[in-house]
């Protein structure tokens, strides 16, 4: 048993254990409880719902790893979506050409990056706590968005955009594909890039990183800019899925992204964490909600169960680490 655990840790990393156990448990429980759980329908529902939450979680992930947080992600996604929507409407709305869509995407990415860069500069240069800075940013973006849209929807986009939210290529859902590409990018960023190395280092000790010659300000600005860019990708997917943009859409995802990250083994104080366990954790959360949905349970019950799952995982982690310390003392 022990060697099996060691082999698993060596192959996938110790932080993969929790999410994988949760994944197996959810598959077993729902597979036995609901006979239509292990079906293409479940896969489809997970595949199309996962990317929204997933992309926002990726946006949350990098700031969390630096020991910070980004509370403005959902409204940054909304505002990026708005930027795209306006570009499309300015070019004929439903009749906008494909070139206009490309331009719209660039406008969205620029908006997301700009809001992130502004946040990053404020955090890096004022040394104010990220909670305060991003909370201010969140309120600013929400207010700005509501002012510009008067609280209403912006809709009426060309038909060729819809597949980005609903379509498939060779049976594979396009939004899921986009999400997986982003997961891969973030994985490489964290494991192999200088920026990823630096952001983990400043996550556990910013001063020590500074004394070793890492450019901590630049790293913080880049981290929040990338977070904003990922929000923009989420904003574009949301635009395509709902064929409309409304400020406040996806607001309830904000804290779920934090939950998913912690479920994926991210250290709450920063400095440690990887993308792949978070990816598995996201799938678990989505399976839980889809499974309950299949069994006819209320959607709000699913949210409540997410909270329960989190507490169970935290407790299990504490027990596991106590057990490890106990074993080491005996050894």
């Amino acid at each position, binding site marked *: 048993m022990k060697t099996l655990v060691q082999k698993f840790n060596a192959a996938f990393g110790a932080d993969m254990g929790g999410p994988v156990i949760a994944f197996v448990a959810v598959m077993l429980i729902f597979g036995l409880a609901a006979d239509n759980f292990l079906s293409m329908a479940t896969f489809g529902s997970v595949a199309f719902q996962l990317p929204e939450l997933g992309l926002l979680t990726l946006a949350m992930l990098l700031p969390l790893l630096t020991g910070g947080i980004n509370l403005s992600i959902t409204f940054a996604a909304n505002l990026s979506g708005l930027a795209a929507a306006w570009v499309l409407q300015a070019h004929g709305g439903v009749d906008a050409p494909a070139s206009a869509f490309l331009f719209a995407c660039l406008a969205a990415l620029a908006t997301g990056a700009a809001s992130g860069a502004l946040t990053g500069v404020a955090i890096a240069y004022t040394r104010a706590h990220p909670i305060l800075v991003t909370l201010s940013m969140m309120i600013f973006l929400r207010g700005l968005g509501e002012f510009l849209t008067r609280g209403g929807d912006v809709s009426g986009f060309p038909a060729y955009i819809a597949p980005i939210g609903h379509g498939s290529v060779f049976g594979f859902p396009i939004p899921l594909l986009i999400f997986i590409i982003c997961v891969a990018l973030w994985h*490489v960023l964290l494991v*192999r*890039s*200088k920026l990823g*190395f*630096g952001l*983990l*280092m400043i996550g*556990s*000790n910013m*001063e*020590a*990183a*500074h*004394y*070793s*010659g*890492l*450019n901590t300000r630049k790293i913080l600005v880049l981290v929040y800019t990338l977070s904003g860019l990922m929000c923009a990708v989420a904003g574009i997917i949301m635009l395509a899925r709902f064929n409309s943009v409304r400020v406040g859409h996806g607001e309830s995802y904000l804290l779920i992204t934090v939950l998913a990250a912690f479920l994926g083994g991210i250290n709450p104080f920063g*400095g*440690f964490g990887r993308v792949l366990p978070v990816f598995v954790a996201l799938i678990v959360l989505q399976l839980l909600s889809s499974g309950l949905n299949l069994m006819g349970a209320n959607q709000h019950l699913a949210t409540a169960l997410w909270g329960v799952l989190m507490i169970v995982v935290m407790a299990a982690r504490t027990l596991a680490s106590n057990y490890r310390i106990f074993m080491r003392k005996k050894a």
Partner: protein
Amino acid sequence: MSAEPLLSLKNIRVTFGGVRALKGVSFEVNPGEVHCLAGENGCGKSTLIKVITGVYKPEEGAEFVFDGKPISGMTPTLAQTLGIQVIWQDLALFSEMSVAENIGFQLAVTGKFGLINKRAIDEAAEKALARLGVSLDIHQPLKELPIAQRQIVAIARALVGEARLVFMDEPTASLTQSEADYLIGIVRNLSASGIAVVFVSHRLAEVLEISHRITVLRDGALVGVYPVEGMTQSRVTELMTGRNFDSAVIAADHDDAPVVLSVRNLTRNGEFVDVSFDLRRGETLGITGLLGAGRTELALTLFGMHKPHSGEILLEGQKVSFGSNRDAIRAGIAYLSEDRLSLGLNQPQSIADNLVMASLDRILSGGLISPTRKADVVSRWISELGVKIGTPDDPIRTLSGGNQQRVAIAKWLAIGPKILILDAPTVGVDVGARAGIFEIVRKLAAEGLSIIIISDEPPEVYFNADRVVHMADGRFQAVYDPRRASLNELESAVYA
């Protein structure tokens, strides 16, 4: 002096993560005695004090007797109740609060109805200061007092709690000679009034002057307990280090080697003034002086973290001006921080990540970090500097102080530096490992690296540098050649 000791410990053993900090030490203090606890950094002095005050628990088999009564489970609260007080080197005072509030803060915490009785605090402060025979303005904020008077405040605070045994950890480390003399007078008063004082100090002259007996620890073990009569400084040094230092000077001439670093009239207001020196290839320069002499500030300026207000830094003849420490690192200047726990190393992160942290550009391949190159660099330096580790992925905080310091040095060697500044390189490193660190330093110097060693222990630089500068009040006071000047000369200058 009564025959019955006030405190008697036997067979005290403490282990931290496999490292034996105390190996069956015994320790005894008589009532009203001034007792010196001597030993090098990392010999177990602080650990012993923390056992006595209940911070650490000794292992099975320890005997602990205070005032004739055996004590089984000492706790910090019990230590306070018994009248055991410690004045740590950092004093643990509140700099924004007044003298009276600092002295009587325990009263404030436990006031009636949860309210603070200001008059009771003032009275207690006056009384405690009077016992010391000192008069201070008790309403003055502590931050306005010089360091020596803050020391007095810390002692007075210990007296509020009806002290019977007071530990003083390096009380004179940051004091001038006249301030230290004043403090010694106060210690005598305490002793005369029946309070036992245990003095921890590096300054052997004052130790010999003030103490009745000396307990010497080395490497976690008891060397012996000696009456102070007939003791000499060199005898105590020998007992502390287990070595005879007379022939250990390594200083050599480097006049033919090219100058690597030239500092001309470098000044940073409020920190250091008019500092000038040359450092040649392969040369080791020692800088010593009391805390607050401006040593670390000078190092941080050379390392590009602070900007000088005037003066010049020339690197191989070229004038340089660093915008940040990244510029300095690129130019080949490395700085090993005095604070390994929070600045020098990233404690929670792995040994490997700490080692490559400053030299990421050297392990890139196609813009990304190459895992194989990283592993190569890590294993190369681990073996070159003889670091003892489990795996490179273990958190660096799991290593002993000496091994951590080796990794910290390796981190800087990995950038291929021209100049290595070592700020207090042996803090928290035990005696055996210290020699190992200096062996590495000597080898690096022989390979042509220019080194600056900063230390507040004069012997450390005296025996490991080609030239020693005494720094005080932000100025270079004098340069000593260890081959011509005696250690005594240097020490009396530093502590004058």
